[in-house]
């Protein structure tokens, strides 16, 4: 495994997560929000792939982390599909994709 050392890699993943959180907290456009969430998930997936190279105990293959990554990508795709569907429906209903204007979650 050449390239990144563990601290370097952790810094990369944390930066990605921070970017995502920043996006989630500041963006008001629903689509941008979804993109920010995707970035956060990718930060997590990156962790799986990286640490899969250091099997901690016998019986763990390097493939298990990568398999989880693939499955998570699949989940992320479906999640985005659902998210986009909500955006479309919301847009049709309100004529805007600004999250601050839809307060339906309030009880």
């Amino acid at each position, binding site marked *: 495994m050449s390239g990144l050392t563990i601290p370097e890699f952790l810094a990369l993943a944390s930066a990605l997560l921070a970017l995502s*959180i920043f996006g*989630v*907290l500041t*963006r*008001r456009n629903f689509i941008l*929000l979804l993109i920010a969430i995707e970035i956060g998930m990718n930060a997590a997936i990156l962790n799986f792939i990286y640490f899969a190279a250091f099997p901690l105990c016998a019986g763990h293959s390097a493939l298990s982390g990568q398999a989880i990554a693939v499955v998570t990508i699949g989940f992320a795709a479906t999640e985005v599909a659902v998210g986009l569907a909500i955006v479309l429906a919301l847009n049709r209903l309100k004529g805007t994709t600004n*999250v*601050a204007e*839809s*307060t*339906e*979650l*309030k*009880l």
Partner: protein
Amino acid sequence: MVPLAPALAFVSISFVGRRWPKGEWGGWIAVVAAGFSMVVSVLIALGEMGAPGTYTDVSYTWFNLPGSPGAFPNGFRLVIGTLVDPISALMLLVVTVVGFLVMLYSIGYMHHDRGLPRYYAELSLFLTAMIGLVLSDNLLEFFLFWELVGVCSYFLIGFYYEKPSAASAAKEAFIVTRVGDVLFLAGIFVYFATYATSGPAGGWAANGFLFAYGNAPFLAGVLGGNSFLLTVAGLFIVAGAAGKSAQFPLHVWLPDAMEGPTTVSALIHAATMVAAGVYLLAVTSLFLGFTSLDLLVIVAIGGFTTFFAATMAVVNPDIKRVIAYSTISQLGYMVLAIGVGGAMLGLFHLFTHAFFKALLFLAAGSVIHAIGTQDLFKMGGLRKTMRLTSAAFLVGGLALAGIPPFGGFWSKDDILSAAVQAAEAHAAYWPFVVLAFAAVYLTAYYIFRVWFLTFSGDAVRDPSLPAAHEGGWVMQVPLIALSVFAVVAGLFVFVPSFQTLLQPFGVAVAGIPPTYTSTDLALSAISVVLAGAGIATAYALWGGGRVYELAPRSAARPIRQLLLERYYFKAAYDAIGRRGIYTLARVADFVDRYVIDGTVHGLERAMGAVSDRLRRAQTGVVSDYAAYVVAGLLFVFVVLLLVGPYVVNAWGGG
């Protein structure tokens, strides 16, 4: 089977009585049920007479608590059962015979009243409870029925509930007897604490407090080690009995209980329920045993009450209240008898007293029914219009005064001679025995004062009263029957088979052996002379329609006032109630309103304020929620960073 009939009557009258006016709103059901019980009881009593020395105990375990090692090794078994032995057979006779006659009399006496289904249902329930009490085979079951008769008494005293005096009298009766009941319960607790772990079969109290012959020696054996606790338990039992039997100082409720219908006074407050206290004492002394200090207290209460109540009866202008005081006084004799060791003598007096006192009440009821007043000074001359009633009252009066051969003589005389015998052994008894003798004179005086005021003379003193007449046959038959009993009940002692009912067996009661037929002639002569003197005094002052007036400046006036005010006991209790209890209640109210409610309301307000703030956080905007999630995560991270190392160390590293 005996209590079942009135129980069925209670249930059926409760449901159908209201729709059945022709059957006196269920009255006849009650009469038939009581009659059935009476027949069965007589059969039981005859059976007991036929086979002396046997008793039948049928008991079922209600529930069983397993024991645990240590303080409570034997567990606890609660049993429900019936015990038929001579004394309960005797009591059964009293309860059901008087019960039946009173029920029959009620048909005529209560005819004009409203709310009759309630009356007959409650009376039937009372009869059920009283029979259950008599047949109980253990102390806890006894207590259960004891409370039940108490509550029936409360209902029936307050029968005319729209009258404030009746309602308050019912409350008073309930509360005062409750004082006794609580102490009685405390006595049961002490017995349990003392005897749950020791004694035959691994603890008498743990095995259901069974009344069984043979307990008394056992408890007496334990007495060496636990005599203090046994004394305390005995005193609590005495207090319970004093509450129920209206003994000093818990006597105040009985005269006021006269607010109920006269029939109720006859059945509950003369013949049966008030006698339950005496019965309790008798049962306790036979089955469990009292210590010598307990006995002294019993003698003191009994002897003092006989005299104390009799003095109040002397001046009272109300026909029923005089008889009520006389009941208290006679119950005092029974208590005295138990105190001097003659439990069976007490029960014998209970037996005779039940008949002649019920007779007096029913005769008084006839008078009240006829002319509608209870004021002795308005009556007079009723001998002419109410021959039967006047004769019945005379018989009852002679029996009460203790003139031979009427019922009261034999039993009262036995008690007095036993008391004198006991006093010769224990000098401390003397004052109370002397008081009991003095009460003989007073008793004869006050009851004949009533008779002369009511029946002698030429005419009714208050002309506005309606013309007197006798009640119908339903009222006359019980009067005649009870008159017969009042005469012969005392003579029963000479019937050998009846004597078996008065014979405790298994254990000889400490002190005086029961001697029923042999009496001290000199003592009998003294008591008869005293009674005769009482009657003579009454005749001199009130006979032939005279009304005795105290001289205006007489020294006796303040005394009379004191007696009329009942030695200010009621006033004192009221004052205690008003000052003490109300103050306590006010403090409790304050605590409730400001401390407890204040805390609750304060919490409520605080919660409201907090949730009001929190509500604003719920904006419904997704980004805000996301921010909360992140904040929460950060918080968890920070906590883990700060605390985590310590936790890991605490778990032993890793």
